[in-house]
């Protein structure tokens, strides 16, 4: 009994400590976002600034044109997500469950792609994209990420664990490959798919280097590019507006993550063995 109580206290304690460390910088981000310009940098350990001023949000929204940027960000992120799902799920399934000649070497190529840092390929990719006349278009922001070696590998690692009995049963029911994918594999791999979706959304929503290179037109700016307005090298930074902007652009994706968590739970049922 006391053991159970002790364990309960320990894990709650651990959870509180871990959550505090994770949360702490965000508290300061929010603090900065609601601080008046002259009280942002004033010392103190209090999580609330001396003067609360919401004008940072107004400035962030208007000066950075965050409305347009968030719309662009949403279009780009969703387009990338959909394309990645359409290309990665079938490929991962093939790697996990379909025997074919050259599967090992091809998987190694996919793995090797994980090793290629995007910073190294940025310039050739930019030259290629420009050569195709795609510079300064939404397509240039999406196309290079239409599939993901990372996604294929992640999903493949999960699909390997899907019991063959499940697939055999589907086949016995007369399902074709695509139907099997949709009705058996996708539900069974849902935790992994949700994980990858979350990863993809956050990575591309926050991506900075590539959009900086290809999206020059302010009408194409994605959220992180829009925020750069408040980081003027020459003329000083506007911390309050930067923090407010960061809160504005982080909130919707975090809300999305809260929703996506249901998929993690839903995945359990699909992953269960029949009978």
């Amino acid at each position, binding site marked *: 009994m006391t053991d159970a109580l002790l364990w309960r206290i320990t894990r709650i304690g651990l959870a509180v400590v871990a959550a505090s460390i994770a949360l702490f910088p965000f508290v300061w981000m929010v603090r900065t976002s609601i601080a*008046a*310009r*002259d009280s*942002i*940098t*004033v*010392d103190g350990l209090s999580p609330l600034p001396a003067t609360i001023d919401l004008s940072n949000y107004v400035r962030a929204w208007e000066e950075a044109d965050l409305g347009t940027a968030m719309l662009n960000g949403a279009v780009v992120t969703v387009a990338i997500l959909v394309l990645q799902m359409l290309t990665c799920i079938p490929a991962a399934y093939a790697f996990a469950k379909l025997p074919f000649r050259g599967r*090992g*070497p091809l998987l*190694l*190529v996919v793995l*090797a792609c994980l090793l290629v840092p995007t910073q190294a390929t940025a*310039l050739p990719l*930019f*030259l290629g994209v*420009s*050569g195709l006349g795609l*510079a*300064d278009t939404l397509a240039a922001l999406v196309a290079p990420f239409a599939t993901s070696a990372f996604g294929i590998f992640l999903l493949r690692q999960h699909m390997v664990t899907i019991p063959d009995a499940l697939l055999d049963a589907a086949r016995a029911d007369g399902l074709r490959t695509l139907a099997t994918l949709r009705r058996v594999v996708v539900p069974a791999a849902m935790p992994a798919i949700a994980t990858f979706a979350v990863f993809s959304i956050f990575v591309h929503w926050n991506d900075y280097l590539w*959009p*900086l*290179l290809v*999206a*020059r*037109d*302010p009408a194409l*700016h994605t959220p992180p*590019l829009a925020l*750069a*307005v408040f*980081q*003027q*090298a*020459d*003329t*000083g*930074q*506007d*911390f309050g507006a930067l923090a407010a902007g960061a809160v504005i652009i982080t909130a919707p994706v975090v809300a999305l993550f809260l929703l996506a968590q249901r998929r993690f739970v839903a995945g359990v049922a699909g992953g269960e063995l029949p009978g």
Partner: protein
Amino acid sequence: MSRIGIGGLAALAATAALVLTACGGGAPAAGTAAAASVTSCDPTGVTLSVAYAPQGDTAVQLAKTQLEQAHPGLTVQLKQSGTSSYDQLTQQIVADIAAGSRPDVAMVGLGQVRFWVDRYQPQPLDTASLKQTYDQRFLQIGAVDGQNFVAPFQVSVPVLYTNSTLTRGAGVTAAPATTSELLAAARQVKAATGSAPVQLPRDGIADWVAQAMIQSGGAAFVNPDGSPGFGTPEGERALSVYETLGTEGLQDPISATDAVTAFTAGRLAYMVTSPASATSISKAVNGSFEWTVTDMPVPDGGTPSLPAGGNGWMVLSEDPCRAAFANELIADMLDPEVITQSSKAFSYIPVDTQAAATLAADPAAATQVGYGWTYTGTPTPWGGWHGDSTPRVNQFLQDMVQRLTSGEPVATVVPETVRRISSAVR
């Protein structure tokens, strides 16, 4: 299995390399001809492209309207960068040119003039097309070997920000004019407050302020042959202020951004940076203490010789007629009204005499943001390292400043830095 994969990659790589050499080898070097006369050029169907950072937007928008009205049929295409950093702006334009889209007019950081001239053969600037009121004393900061290439637009020189509430509290009333006055005042302030009172930039624009110290101390920054000129007794004496700040604990080893934060929080007595920050600092301080913007202290016995920061416009057109239109566009962007507005927004030094007169009459001219408006000195070119060595050299200069302000002696750090730079520019 994996060996096959890698072998295949290698073969592919070799093929691609061959194709590239075959294609790239014959590309002609960018040729330049002098700008033609606008009157002899047909504007129909001409599209001029301008690459610039957001701080130039007002000027570009205005000039676009004027030029398109003056020459029906001509279109000005705007390529605004998402970044206000001149290094990143340069990266983008370099990438654009590599991808085959060379802008006609580009904004360049004044520290990169020589890089552009040495690497990309811009058109010489047609100074005759500039407005009558353009302040000629600024032209030389955009010149290389006597030839004008860049029309300076938003110009600044390093200045001293002082929290006078703090310094007066420590009994210091006069603004320091020399580095030894700065050090004496700093010691006094430190004795009163207990914390390090000075910040000379240790990153970002570290090279800019170091150049100001070196030149003002009577040493050459770059020798005519391109080698570093400050490995001399004058140079070492000019840079010794950094060492003293380090050894006596008068400057904390923090970043330039953190220095601004410390200043606006009222914790820092003295800071050297660009006057262009005055507007944003003014908003952040919001009257919580008194502060001033004055001349940067120079080494004892020296005379101010300050490099020009900021940006200017450059013509990259390869066709004489396009170059002529590009020059006219630049003239429009340097309109007195535009200069007045940008100086008001960012407290830059006005490069137009009419704008300067307007600004001098403005009530705000007497405040901190007015320092640049009434600046009468003549800045020198910034940097000037040959070829594409500038970014590397700036890294070495930054390392030098960081080592000195950490207390390492001038006698070892400066010769070492000179050696590193010499091998990079060779």
